[in-house]
């Protein structure tokens, strides 16, 4: 099956309407030397499309993806030309994942590196347990986003729901719109020059044209870093 796909000159096309997901992912885990791009047709919300990529290849998913699109991505550039289900680009290490539409819950969860761009809105817990990746959301993010985010950066061009940045460690969040509420230990901080530069760069990487100066910085107040009886901790 794979050889017949390769025969299509220039672009490799997988049609999930007629080919199993297993074949696609097995192909993507193989030797991709000389292959520039892979197109996935008729994804129809299939789960785990292009997971475990480990090569600098472009994958275009022409339609909606289910859970874990581009999960654990390394090096690849994956574009979902539609919406993405929960856990899109979860635990990404490097590379770039872009969702042209909306992303469901847990987008970019525990990503250690790379860039996740969501042009539309993101659901609950976007960037939960973020460990070093960058996330740019063109629209709004749902509640409990960046929960326990440890490192990395989130740029939210729209509004954020409840509990943004609860129990943050060293990750930094930038929000352009309204924040319904901050989570425990998250606080607004003044924007410095490095913040402006960071936001500017990430917006440029995401192809968005907002002004960096319109964003507010949110980071950890670090009162939960150490247990002590007097900090009115509720856990």
């Amino acid at each position: 099956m794979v050889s017949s796909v390769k025969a299509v000159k220039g672009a490799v096309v997988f049609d999930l309407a007629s080919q199993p997901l297993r074949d696609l992912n097995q192909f993507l885990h193989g030797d991709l030397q000389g292959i520039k791009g892979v197109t996935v047709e008729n994804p129809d919300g299939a789960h785990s499309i292009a997971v475990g990529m480990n090569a600098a290849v472009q994958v275009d998913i022409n339609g909606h993806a289910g859970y874990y699109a581009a999960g654990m991505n390394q090096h690849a550039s994956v574009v979902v030309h539609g919406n993405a289900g929960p856990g899109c680009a979860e635990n990404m290490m490097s590379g770039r994942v872009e969702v042209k539409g909306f992303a469901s819950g847990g987008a970019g969860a525990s990503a250690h590196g790379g860039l996740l761009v969501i042009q539309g809105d993101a659901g609950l817990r976007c960037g939960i347990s973020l460990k070093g990746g960058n996330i740019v959301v063109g629209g709004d993010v749902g509640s409990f986003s960046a929960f326990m985010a440890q490192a990395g950066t989130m740029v939210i061009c729209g509004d954020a729901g409840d509990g943004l940045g609860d129990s943050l460690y060293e990750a930094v969040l930038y929000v352009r719109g309204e924040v319904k509420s901050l989570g425990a230990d998250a606080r607004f901080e003044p924007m410095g020059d490095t913040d402006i530069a960071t936001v500017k760069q990430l917006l440029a990487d995401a192809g968005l044209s907002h002004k960096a100066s319109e964003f507010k910085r949110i980071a950890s107040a670090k009162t939960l870093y150490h247990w002590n009886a007097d900090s009115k901790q509720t856990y």
Partner: protein
Amino acid sequence: MSTKSTPDANPSQGPLSREESAGFNSQVISYIQRAAATGLYEIRGLGAKRHLPHFDDLLFLGASLSRYALEGYREKCSSKTILGTRFAKKPIELEIPITVAGMSFGALSANVKEALGRAATEMGTSTTTGDGGMTAEERQSSKTLVYQCLPSRYGFNPDDVRRADAIEIVIGQGAKPGGGGMLLGQKVSPRVAKMRTLPAGVDQRSACRHPDWTGPDDLAIKIKELREITDWEKPIYVKVGATRVFHDVKLAVHAGADVVVVDGMQGGTAATQVAFIEHVGIPTLAAVRQAVDALEDMNMKDQVQLIVSGGIRSGADVAKALAMGADAVAIGQGILIALGCNSESYVQKGSHLSALADYHKIGTAPGFCHHCQTGKCPVGVTTQDAILEQRLEPLVGAQRVRNYLKTMNMELTMIARACGKQDVHHLEREDLVAVTVEAAAMAGIPLAGTSWVPGRHGY
């Protein structure tokens, strides 16, 4: 103060009363005093210390006239164990059914992780990573390494997923079902901090739920994702802390697990709230039976393997777990004790050196120590301290753990032969009786000398 030397006599009221309250005994009083002084729950290591029905409450019926025994030293008794036969292309093949439980680098030192890998490899069994990622030392020293996927996802990465021999999705832990991990600041060394992407020295609390899925239907999709990433090669284990075991095992099987790991409440921890350790979860004995019931109810016994952990200490414990229906066991605390945990001394270049003063410094003594959370382990097992960790030499540790595993496996095969089995996996419930009513009820094993299983057949 009176200078009279009769402390137990009070001339005006008669003898001094020393009647201890059952409810407010000296332990409870000291708990309340501690709580009042600190405003924070107590955190400690190891497992439940309370008395619980356990494998000690079961006995084997050795062969006699009605069963045929095997010669102890002459006739073969296999302990080979295969895990992950349901979907994985490359199941785990072990020489013994006794595996090393998941314990993190962070909780344990790198030397200890290396020692465990060496011992397990020599004995033909597996080791398991923990809530802190995979270290190069343990991958290199372990022939068969199970890689945990935990809620925290500290250090979790696709390269290590591909390097692993099996993946264990951890839902919970017997010491704290429903709770996340903890590592106090003194153990978050620069190397641990880097692996976990945390600032060095923070009191780390990890999440209790996975970040990218909620509930059993999602778990099924998550398992498929891991299978796709690993090209369906590696067995996927699902580990649960023992609570509603019957339902949890069914859900794990339904979600597509190759192997289910059930950890009873006696299971250890590196640092957990005492109230959690002692008051949440069910005993291992009850958990095994519920897990086996679930597999049998789904007709999945032998298709999905069961690993049992939580306070397993000896070859007899292993034999009882297997007879009740487990395929293998995992051991954590027993392994630590084999390494030297709670020992009076540690070995440096062949000589035993006393650790007593260091136990004293952290307010305990050998035989009672559960101070893993301090990171000041006097024998260098549960520490990240650069000096203390040297007290456990990997080769010494490896030899001790190998000896311990070997002893247990010999006890296991000895019992199996005595029960007339050529394979330890042929041990069966009919080989067991219970010596307490509680154990009989929990294990579903008849009380010795009777055919009575409490709760069965209407009474």
